[in-house]
């Protein structure tokens, strides 16, 4: 990605006489304007806010607190500590629940779709369809399905089993949120895997099967190694997407039961927007951002390196 940028521009002979032309700046200006306003500036402004007790409606009551908003995140006696770490561990728990199936099942689906058979296009269309819906449609739908009097429990009861309090109990709430998330987003990962599968040269498989490798051996000896870089990519975006979980629990459980599915994004939303404490919320988001960056870095370091071989 960081490769040296190859530039061309008008051929040297026709380059404007002035050393610096204004034209390239005109090209980048529209985007740059927004980039500065909504990505560069807020980066620094966010850090600035995090150093104050910052109530956006009380400019008169906005004392500088230095690093206290950060320190509070590590101080068990602070007001923020319990709820913040609870939310952070909830987000972590969701990642444990969701990332493996979101990657594993997506790969399975991609393999299923990569074979040659009648109706393959239809199945691909079906698997991807939920991804086009909004998070609210997906969440409201599964919220209804997992109601205590909903279809899942009614089906379970028809088989003589005890109904489960999906949304109101642990781990039922995570199961429901995870299934909703898989249903909603797995099509994305599947399509990416499928594309990568199709780029694996057919000749590799032909050679392998001439050597007597069966389907499983082919999968682990050819498919998986060839997919490594895509796997890392999918793993990374899935980790990040899972870490940003908000809409599903917001709608399906409201963060309950007993704050058990309140995610860290929800917590920041609550602290900054509902409690109006933007200083602490900004500190939380910066802390979470650092965690996510480290995660991405580690991910590439551990899984990405082997790709070189």
């Amino acid at each position, binding site marked *: 990605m*960081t490769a040296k940028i*190859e*530039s061309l*521009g008008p*051929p040297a002979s*026709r380059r404007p006489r002035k050393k*610096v032309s204004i*034209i*390239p700046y005109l*090209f*980048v200006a*529209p*985007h740059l304007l*927004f*980039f500065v*306003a*909504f*990505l*560069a500036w*807020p*980066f620094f*402004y*966010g850090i600035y*806010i995090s150093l104050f007790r910052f109530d956006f409606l009380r400019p008169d009551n906005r004392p500088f607190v230095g690093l206290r908003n950060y320190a509070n995140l590590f101080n068990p006696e602070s007001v923020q500590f319990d709820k913040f770490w609870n939310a952070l561990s909830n987000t972590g728990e969701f990642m444990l629940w969701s990332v493996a199936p979101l990657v594993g099942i997506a790969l399975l689906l991609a393999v*299923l779709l*990569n074979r040659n*058979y009648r109706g393959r296009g239809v*199945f691909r*269309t*079906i698997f991807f*369809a*939920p991804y*086009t*819906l*909004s*998070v*609210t*449609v997906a969440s*409201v*739908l599964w919220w*209804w399905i997992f109601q205590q009097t909903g279809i899942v429990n009614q089906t379970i009861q028809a088989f003589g089993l005890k109904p489960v309090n999906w949304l109101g109990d642990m781990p039922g709430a995570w199961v429901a949120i995870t299934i909703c998330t898989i249903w909603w987003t797995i099509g*994305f990962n599947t*399509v*990416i895997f*499928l*594309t*990568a599968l*199709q780029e694996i040269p057919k000749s590799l*498989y032909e050679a392998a*099967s001439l050597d007597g490798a069966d389907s499983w051996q082919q999968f682990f000896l050819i498919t998986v190694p060839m997919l490594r870089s895509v796997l890392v990519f*999918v793993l990374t975006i899935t980790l990040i997407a899972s870490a*940003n979980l908000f809409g599903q629990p*917001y709608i399906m459980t409201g963060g309950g039961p007993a704050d058990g599915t309140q995610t860290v994004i929800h917590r920041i939303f609550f602290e*900054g927007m509902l409690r109006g404490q*933007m200083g602490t919320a900004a500190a939380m*988001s*910066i802390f*979470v951002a650092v965690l996510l*960056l480290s995660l*991405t870095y580690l991910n590439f370091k551990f899984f990405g390196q082997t790709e070189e071989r």
Partner: protein
Amino acid sequence: MTTIQTTPDVEETEAQIGESRLAQIGFYVVLALFAMFFLLPILWMVVTAFKPFEEWLNPNWIPVNPTLENFQSIFNDKSLPVVNWFLNSLLIAALFTIVILVIDSLAGYAYARLEFPGKDLLFGLMLATLVMPGIMFLIPNYLTVARLGWIGTIQGVIAPGFAGVFGVFFMRQFFQGLPRELEEAAYIDGASVWRTFISVVLPLSKGPIITLGIITFLTSWNDFLWPLLILGGDRNALTLPVGLATLQGQYTFDYGKLMAGALVLTVPVLILYAIFQRYIIRSISMTGIKG
């Protein structure tokens, strides 16, 4: 660029030809189970939406007395301007997509082909933000939007997204892959940079522009947290995702109406998807290649 339609018969190997009929059936059963997992929830939404009040809590998959009353009450309820929500979502996603396409292809071209002091620095900065989680920017951007007086407005919803760098990278990547000869020929003919871009480069870029457009549109169409924060001062101004969350708050226990509402919001999208699914899936697959 590989397309999914032209899949090589990867698995058509010796091993498979000898495959028993049983395995074949098993394969289809697995596929069918997955298909059910993706389809049944949508079917259940449809079924519930057509059920009268008395049947909502019954597990029957065919309504005994199918009714349109859920839809009628959704459309007759003045406090649920579903049509407005749909149009708002459409307007917001369309505006967002158009502006992104314009500014990102301009910027992408400059970073790919033009030479200017500060280019590497700017590009490096953008690269850095690509890996930064969006949550960092939520609160400061909210304050900026509030200060600009954009709370509750369309520009408040879309403007922060214009800063995104994915599209710039995407377009730059594409422009770098274009052969330079055409542009050089245009310069020799005396065309300006602008003219070359407009009449030589852009006509060659239909594919990536459509792809970026679809991805951008979908992102905006499904966005929830930011519009939830920014919109809401006026029920008429909500987007579909936020509107449905409102609907859930209001019809928490009127499951039939809630599902009718969800269905109304779902059907247009699924129709669009059915028409454009080839492009949509191809677009998604291209984001993977870029990664």
